């Protein structure tokens, strides 16, 4: 289990059952829910923000939030 800020580009994972309390409702509503898939698409040139594919939605969030989203890596 790792947080999505540690992913390499192209890596995917499935969000774990226990959602961190820091994750805001808005992020859940976009698709950050247990069982959904996350893939890292791109890292911004200055290392922040990070561009993810979350359950079909393409969004960019900052590292400080990505730290809280934990996934199980898909091999």
């Amino acid at each position, binding site marked *: 289990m790792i947080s999505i800020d540690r992913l390499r580009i192209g890596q995917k994972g499935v969000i774990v059952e226990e959602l961190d309390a820091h994750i805001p*409702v808005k992020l859940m*509503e976009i698709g950050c*829910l247990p069982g959904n898939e996350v893939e890292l*698409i*791109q890292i911004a*040139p200055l290392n922040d*923000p990070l561009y993810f594919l979350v359950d079909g939605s393409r969004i*960019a969030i900052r590292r400080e939030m990505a730290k809280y989203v934990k996934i199980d890596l898909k091999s």
Partner: protein
Amino acid sequence: MSAALKVALIGNPNTGKSSIFNALTGLRQKVGNYPGITVEKKTGYCKLSDELEAKIIDLPGAYSLNTTSLDESVAVELLLNKRDEDFPDVVVVIAEVENLKRNLLLFTQIKDLGIKTVLVINMADRMGRLGISLDIQALERELDTKIALISTRKNEGIDTLKSLLAAHTQLSESEVLDINRIDANYFEGLKKTFPKISLYKLWLAITQDVNFMPIERQSIADQSSFSTKSKDELKKMQHRETVLRYQFINSALKKAYQKDFTKAEGVQGFLDRLFTHKIWGYLIFFVILFSIFQVIFDFSSYPMDAIDGFFGWLSEWVKGTMPAGILTDLIAEGIIAGIGGVVIFIPQIAFLFLFIALLEESGYMSRVVFLMDRLMRPFGLSGKSVIPLMSGMACAIPAVMATRIIENWKERLITILVVPFTTCSARLPVYLIIIALVIPEGRIFGLGYQALVLTGLYFLGFISALLAAAILSANLKLNRKNFFMVEMPTFKTPQLKNVGFTVFEKTKSFVFGAGQIILALSIVIWFLGSNGYSDDFKNAKEILMAQIESTSEPVSELEIEHKISSYKLEHSYIGQLGKFIEPAVQPLGYDWKIGIALITSFAAREVFVGTLATIYSVEDSEESTIVGRMALERDAVGRPIFNLATGVSILIFYAFAMQCMSTLAIVRKETNSWKWPMIQLGFMTVLAYTASLITYQLLV
């Protein structure tokens, strides 16, 4: 003809909601502000059938009724308040084929409010490319609603939407979610306490920071017949609610929505990687930014010169045609010049918004945020602030309007307040004249001193904007804690009709929103500059003629006219004011003549040159002539007025001072109050005065 049907449009950002609004209302649109706040209120009219009109309100884009911004709360407040005059009879929820699952979250929430709802699925033309197939009837059954499948690009489906709206009485009002499934005990208690109110509405009122009139939040907290929950517990419940909603959506889509995932995404992926690339991404962005700047700074000078010429001609024509007198002067020099002063901004505004609309419609704008966020954040600015800041180097007026693209209010306000620090094109004539006057012509390492000073001033502008932003950001305490997230829409070809609508609407809102203030102020300033109460003013012509006769020097008609203008200006209200403030500006190295130019510049910076030309009764506004004449000015003891210290002091003053009534007018419009423009004026004036004072005292 029955009363208009009230329809509200709502949907996620990037679903093409504005295209649908435009398709329904055409030019019958109106943009204003919600009272007391800065959120834009867009309404329009649409003919649904021969007997029925619809009044359509375009609500701000929202991902959910759980609000995280002022924009989103506007939508929720309207939808919870049946007594609001804009409360809709029907809500149209707009979704699009690619993100349908997520779009439907909002749909289920709207349905739970018990309002008649129609679902629009937009961008139908993309279905083939994405390998998507939809069973509309099945979906209508699953969601218990009516669906209009639309493609605004191909102009298909709008009539279906209109007929669905016309048949609104047949729409279901049933709810989607059994809210008790979130926490049975809690909602049972809630139901007992407030038996008459919909549970979902109660739930929204409890979890949101919304001004919901009929229920006071305190009264909810006071009731003890149900347990109150802590913030954490409420959040867990919202989590459960979201999971339940998606379970419903997923099961509905399973029966009606198919996507062929083998359809490759070649071009999209390539463009994404290109635009966010370490090197290419920034390169492309700076080329775009520079082009925007070039067009506003350079190309727009053609239409602007044409407008200038036209109004100048009109003014002369009026003076020639109408009998001489105060009314003619008012019309020719006050009103016509004033209107010209408003119209002249239109080319720049139109060009800037043309670019912005293209960037937004194509989906590129989000990539800008992605690239610039890390750089702008330390200054309290948004990644999107770069565009207004860059445009501000041409002109602050369209730049301030462009801050609309920034969603976060604090970031937007800060950007609005600091944009005037960037060196706008109106400062250029002032800089060029003063630099020519006081900066030596030599070179250092092959670079001319004069060019270096000019470049330095440009940097000064940009850096002071960033510094001011950082200071404001640390001190302005107004943020609803916003978590940063930007959606990256798929790249699409901009729809030109939408671009056209945007440009038209922005231009219109400028002319009618800020234009009146600018016109009023320019008439006032014209009046103060061409009228005076003293006898000297009224008898200007006689006094001057006497003076000239007594010197017995040959003097041409034109020269006499210029001398009279100069004398009149000196003795007008503004002239009196200039002399009055002389003691205050002397420590800055200025005399009363410069003082007058400073005052007139508060209307618009470039007026400085024209004012000096009048004061020194120079025949033409040719730069070299004015510079030559100014170099001859001497003070009481014979030293040059325009020495290095005074010159640099003037440069610094113009760098920091807020000398543009048009900017104040547009800031007033965009912030919906006089508070911010006044603060801006006060702060920048004090800064300009202090900085020039220090500069002069150090250099003299």
